[in-house]
C-alpha cells in the first residue's frame, strides 16, 4: 500500500512517519502532485499556525490538489482545522472541505487551560450529539477511548462530527465527509488506541 504524507511547512512530522512504520507501512513524504494523486492513502498532518500554513499551501498550489483528492485522506490536528472553512486563528480562510468554522477555546473556569494538552476521551457513539453509529475510522476502541490532544482552537459540533470530545464545551474530536477524515487529536501519540485508528484508516 502506498501512503503519502503531504509535505508542507507543518513542523515536525516524524512522529507520524514512526507511527506508520510501527504499522508496517513506509510512507512517502511529498508535495508532488502525481505522487499524491496516485497514493492509496493520503495523510495531511499538522503542527503550526493556520495562516502561515495556508499561505504556504496556496503558494505551492496544494490547496486545490488536496480538495480534489479521491482516495481516503486523513487530516490530523491543524490538518483537520485547515480542512474546515475558516479559522479564528489569525482570521484565516481554509480549504472548505468541511463546511464549518474553527473557533478558539474561551474557557470560563480556571482549570480549563488553553491549549488543551493531554488525554481526553472521545465519544464515538452518542444519541445526544447525533453520532448514531460508530464510524469505521473509530471502530474497535470501546465506547469512550482516551486520545492525546494538544490544541487551542476547535471545530464545533456539525453534521460531519463522528466523535465528540468535551473540553470547555462538547466539540468535534473527529470528522468524516465522503473520502475525507479528520481527527483533532494525535493518533500517532495515542498509544494502542491511536495505533488502532491508524490501522482502521489504512483498512478503509
Amino acid at each position, binding site marked *: 500500500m502506498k501512503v503519502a504524507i503531504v509535505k508542507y511547512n507543518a513542523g515536525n512530522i*516524524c512522529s507520524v512517519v514512526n507511527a506508520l512504520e510501527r504499522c508496517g507501512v513506509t510512507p512517502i513524504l511529498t508535495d508532488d502532485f502525481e505522487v499524491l494523486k496516485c497514493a492509496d492513502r493520503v495523510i495531511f498532518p499538522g503542527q503550526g499556525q493556520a495562516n502561515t500554513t495556508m499561505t504556504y499551501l496556496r503558494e505551492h498550489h496544494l490547496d486545490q490538489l488536496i480538495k480534489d483528492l479521491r482516495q481516503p485522506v486523513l487530516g490530523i490536528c491543524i490538518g483537520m482545522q485547515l480542512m474546515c472553512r475558516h479559522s479564528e486563528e489569525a482570521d484565516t480562510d481554509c480549504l472548505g472541505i468541511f463546511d464549518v468554522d474553527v473557533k478558539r477555546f474561551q474557557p470560563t473556569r480556571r482549570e480549563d487551560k488553553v*491549549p*488543551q494538552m*493531554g488525554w481526553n476521551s472521545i465519544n464515538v457513539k452518542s444519541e445526544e450529539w447525533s453520532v448514531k453509529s460508530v464510524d469505521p475510522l473509530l471502530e474497535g476502541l470501546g465506547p469512550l477511548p482516551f486520545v*492525546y490532544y*494538544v490544541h487551542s482552537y476547535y471545530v464545533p459540533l456539525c453534521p460531519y462530527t463522528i466523535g465528540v470530545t468535551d473540553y470547555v464545551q462538547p466539540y468535534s474530536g473527529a470528522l468524516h465527509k465522503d473520502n475525507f477524515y479528520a481527527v483533532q487529536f494525535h493518533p500517532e501519540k495515542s498509544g494502542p488506541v491511536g495505533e488502532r485508528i491508524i490501522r482502521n484508516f489504512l483498512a478503509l
Partner: protein
Amino acid sequence: MLAKRIIPCLDIKDGQTVKGVNFVGLRSAGDPIELGKAYSDQGADELVYLDITASHEGRKTFTELVGRIAREINIPFTVGGGINELSDVDRLLNAGADKVSINSAAIRRPELIDEIARHFGSQVCVVAIDAKQTAQGWRCFLNGGRLETERDLFVWAKEANDRGAGEILFTSMDHDGVKEGFANEALASLASTLSIPVIASGGAGRMEHFRDAFTEGHADAALAASVFHFGEISIKELKEYLRKEGICIR
C-alpha cells in the same frame, strides 16, 4: 474530561537509566527503551527522559537514544538536560521528542523561553524548576540543585508562564527522595496563579500521595521515578486506585 497524567521520569547517563536519591548516589535501573515501553504498557501517560551526562559524546548518545525512543514508543515524551540554546531544542525535536524541558538555562537566560515558544510553539516548552524552602521563602536552585539563586519560585514560574512556557515542572527539593508526599501547598499556589499546566515532582512514596497532589495540590500531572523503577508502586495499580478515588484517569 481531561485526565490527570502519571509521568515516570527516567534519568539517563551514557545511554542507561539511573536515578539519584536526593540528587546524589546513583543506582542503575535498566534499559531506557525497555523501561519506557513497560511503563507505556502499564498505562503511563507520558515519559520524561533526562540526560544527566554533560559531555559532548554523551549528548550525541542521548540524541541517538531519542531517535530510538521516538520510533518505538507511541505516547508523548519530554526530554531534558543540557539544553542551552535553540539549536539543542531543534536537534532533540528533530530526533523525535515531543517536548523539551529546560531548567538552569532558562534562569540564566529567560529569553530562551520566548525563543522556543516563538520557533516551535509553547506546547513543546516545559520549564522545570527545582526549588527549596529557605528563610526567604521558596527559592529556585540551579545546576541540579547545587546552586541557590535569588529567584522566588512563584515569581519565576509566573514569568516563565508569561514568556510562553507550555508547562511548569516543579520539583520540591525538600520533598524529593523523602517519599512523604508532594509539596501540595506550593503546588496549589502555583495552580492558582498560572494559566498553564503544573506537573508535580518530588516526594512520591505511596499511592495516596498522587491523589493528594491532584486533590490538594491541584496539579495537572504527577511525576515520579524511583517508586516506579524499583516496583514499589505499579502504574497500573496506581491508576486503578486513583480512579476509585474519583480522579479522572485514562
